[in-house]
């Protein structure tokens, strides 16, 4: 906050939080070699600032300069919180990796209006639209409903490819590009995981759910563009159903190759012979 410069409130708070984290880390390191050490429990700062609003509608703080009167007092209080409290009060990290509003084709002004109602990415827009209706979101954000529908279509969760894990399979394992009602996915009998590639695979309510023969498969790793699910030890061929975060369902037929199935081997392939046989 030097001189005439002003800063966004979130940058300002982040910079203080970084400093407080440094203090906690330093004090915790000291406790390794010392019997007694202290922890900073609360920290508050009364700042004399001028609060400004920039043309984009962002609140900025400008430090009060020498002999400048009329500054506001902003009291910022920081305290220590526990990990469960963080989990309760912050959105899931996976959701933050959802496509941004920019990526689903919204203009800066449209993004700003959506951010004012707490929508920062495609997953949150999808969640709010399915909860309150697209018309309500359009009315609250003062956006055209067709623009919103266009953005929702671009950010709609999709599954593009399903492959067995952990090894990268040959292309023959992918479902066809023009899928029939239930594309067939072939996997080796010993495949431990199934990888689903797509977009929007993690919503605000959690990741997409995958069922094999109506039995839910546990999620090993969930990301916006990839979901890894565990397969049973002896998977059986059957219906693979993927319920996406927006409620849509995609179905496949999973075909488990038999245990004795081996890829065809060319007879002309170089045969193994004892070394002396070649001499």
């Amino acid at each position, binding site marked *: *906050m*030097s001189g005439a*410069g002003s*800063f966004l409130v979130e*940058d*300002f*708070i*982040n*910079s*203080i*939080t*970084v*400093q*407080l*984290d*440094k*203090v*906690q880390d*330093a*004090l*915790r390191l000291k*406790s390794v070699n010392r019997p*007694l*050490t*202290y*922890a*900073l*429990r*609360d*920290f*508050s*700062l*009364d*700042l*004399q600032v001028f609060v400004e609003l920039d043309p984009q509608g962002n609140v900025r703080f400008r*430090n*009060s*300069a*020498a*002999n*400048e009167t009329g*500054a506001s007092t902003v009291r*910022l*209080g*920081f*305290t*220590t*919180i*526990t*990990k*469960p*409290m*963080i989990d309760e009060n912050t959105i899931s990290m996976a959701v933050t990796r959802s496509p941004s509003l920019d990526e689903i084709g919204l203009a800066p002004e449209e993004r700003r209006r959506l951010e004012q109602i707490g929508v920062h990415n495609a997953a949150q827009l999808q969640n709010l639209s399915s909860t309150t209706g697209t018309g309500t979101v359009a009315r609250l954000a003062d956006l055209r409903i067709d623009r919103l529908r266009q953005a929702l279509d671009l950010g709609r969760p999709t599954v593009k490819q399903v492959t067995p894990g952990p090894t990268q399979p040959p292309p023959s394992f992918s479902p066809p590009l023009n899928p029939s009602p239930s594309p067939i996915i072939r996997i080796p009998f010993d495949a431990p995981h199934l990888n689903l590639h797509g977009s929007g695979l993690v919503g605000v309510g959690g990741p997409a759910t995958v069922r094999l023969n109506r039995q839910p498969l546990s999620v090993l790793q969930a990301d916006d563009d990839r979901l890894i699910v565990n397969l049973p030890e002896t998977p059986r061929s059957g219906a693979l159903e993927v319920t996406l975060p927006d409620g849509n369902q995609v179905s496949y037929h999973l075909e488990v190759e038999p245990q004795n199935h081996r890829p065809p081997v060319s007879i002309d392939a170089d045969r193994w012979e004892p070394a002396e046989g070649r001499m």
Partner: protein
Amino acid sequence: MNQIELADTLIALVEGIEAPPGTGLFVTEAELEVPMEVSGVLINNSMVFFAAPPHTRWKSGVLPQVHRAVLRVELAEDDNASVAGSQT
């Protein structure tokens, strides 16, 4: 003002509350109210927050604005789960 990061100032203040060795006294809790000169500088596109007590007790119209910081310091317990965060 000297460009001292807020973290360095706070660590020095926390260090300062320890009772002298050999006295048999232990400070278990302290609340410090400290005037601070603060400034922020953009370094590699991220803001770094500097804060330090005023370099003089004199008041004049040309000295930087003095702000007020309050710290509550306690003896650390074995609670590794606690981390810093904002309460605003």
